[in-house]
């Protein structure tokens, strides 16, 4: 009988969904942080919190990409 691995399909769906939304969300927050920092600089001030947060978000995205490359290589 045809044996479909629904569990595998389900986990592919779940993992893809979470990973995509998480990476895109983090990346957008990072851009948002940089944008705030930019606006602050334009007014002569700084926004250290926004900037640090942005870098943290980008770092997590880089980690996700690195993990992706690791999966390809391994």
């Amino acid at each position: 009988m045809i044996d479909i691995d629904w569990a595998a399909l389900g986990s592919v769906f779940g993992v893809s969904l979470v990973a995509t939304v998480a990476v895109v969300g983090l990346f957008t927050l990072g851009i948002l942080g940089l944008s705030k920092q930019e606006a602050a600089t334009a007014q002569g001030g700084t926004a250290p919190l926004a900037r640090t947060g942005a870098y943290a978000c980008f770092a997590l995205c880089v980690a996700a990409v690195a993990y992706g490359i690791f999966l390809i290589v391994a």
Partner: protein
Amino acid sequence: MEHITLLLAIVIVTALVFDFTNGFHDTANAMATTISTGAMKPKAAVAMSAVLNLVGAFLSVEVAKTISKGLVREEGIQPEVILAALVGAILWNLLTWLIGLPSSSSHALMGGLLGATIASIGVSGVNGGVVVTKVLIPAVAAPLVAGIAAFLAARLTYKLGKNVGEKSGAKGYKAGQIASAGLVSLAHGTNDAQKTMGIITLALVAGGVLAPGSNPPVWVIVSAGMAIALGTYLGGWRIIRTMGKGLTDLQPQQGFAAQTSAAAVILASSNLGFSLSTTHSCSGAVMGSGLGRKGGVVRWSTATRMFVAWGLTLPAAGLVAAAAEFVARQGDWGIAAVAVFLVASCAAIWFISRRQVVDHNNVNETDGPAADAGTPADTEPAGVVTTAIAAVTPPPAGSAAAEEAAEEAAEAVEPDAATAVTSDVKPSIPAQSGAAADSARPAGANV
């Protein structure tokens, strides 16, 4: 490699040609959105994708070792069966490229293998259940999974990012798109270049050159990597245009969401044991992100043509492969006839493509309105394709002409399949013609 016979050499060259068409066909998966949103210049995008495909080809040989495993029974598979399978897959790839539709190269290859195997040893050589689980279910699941993920991601990024300043937004999404497109290219190189390595290795094993269970030799890895990279670099601009502009209109946010979803689905599926086609995932992701923007639309007529092409991939490639196998097993002249037929068909498709050139210069020209305005041209390209293929079908293979005529009758299945395909999907040709026809006509109008 000293015992390689002529047949084996033909099989290897054909496998590399398939690899080339695979790269050519699938550039769109990684780069269509990056090009259409302007994140990278077209030439730079395909160059980057080509390099990453090449790198990917060297990263691992796991896929190559499991190619075709379970789908057809490998014992007793003959080199000419592989040749016939490749002929079916190549012609389907080129035909879908001609009409600018993304379709899975892997499915074309599987269809070819199935058709050739059935023609060779009968239906008993095929595992029906595996066809459903490895081909049909994934074909439905991939665009849904990638599409839903891209849809939600696009919604999220629009919502979170609505206060983002223009400058950092443009810069950020550009970088994000390039990174995720790079990841897709790399994954494609590891997956698809290896399929060709697997096929060549299978042929070498079948020809008795390699022991069963061998790893692909280095020259196989190098040549397969080069072939897919070259194909990627030349870029299937017609498909890039359909995917980047034809299915929906993408902004950088959507392009980023689509590519990230495609990369996540491809990586998740190849690591969690439920393999999904790259092409199907990417097309689904593009459509999902298209719907994820307020007021975003998907051009369902183009999408429907694409789905029809997906549905036809397996039977069409299989039918051609079965006919090719039938001719090829008649002996040396049969193999020669198949080889000549392949070359002539490729040349014909290429000449037809020159009538309306799509390249890096006009890849981003939209063709939406032209699709409706193109009614008079509607029937014409289909007729041209059909007659051109019909015209080249009897290959001028010399002496055995009379005998061959009988065989060609069997092979006439092929143009039939082509006709069916062309008439099903023909409206896409005027869709491409609108923008490019005027400038392109004088150059290569006469086939």
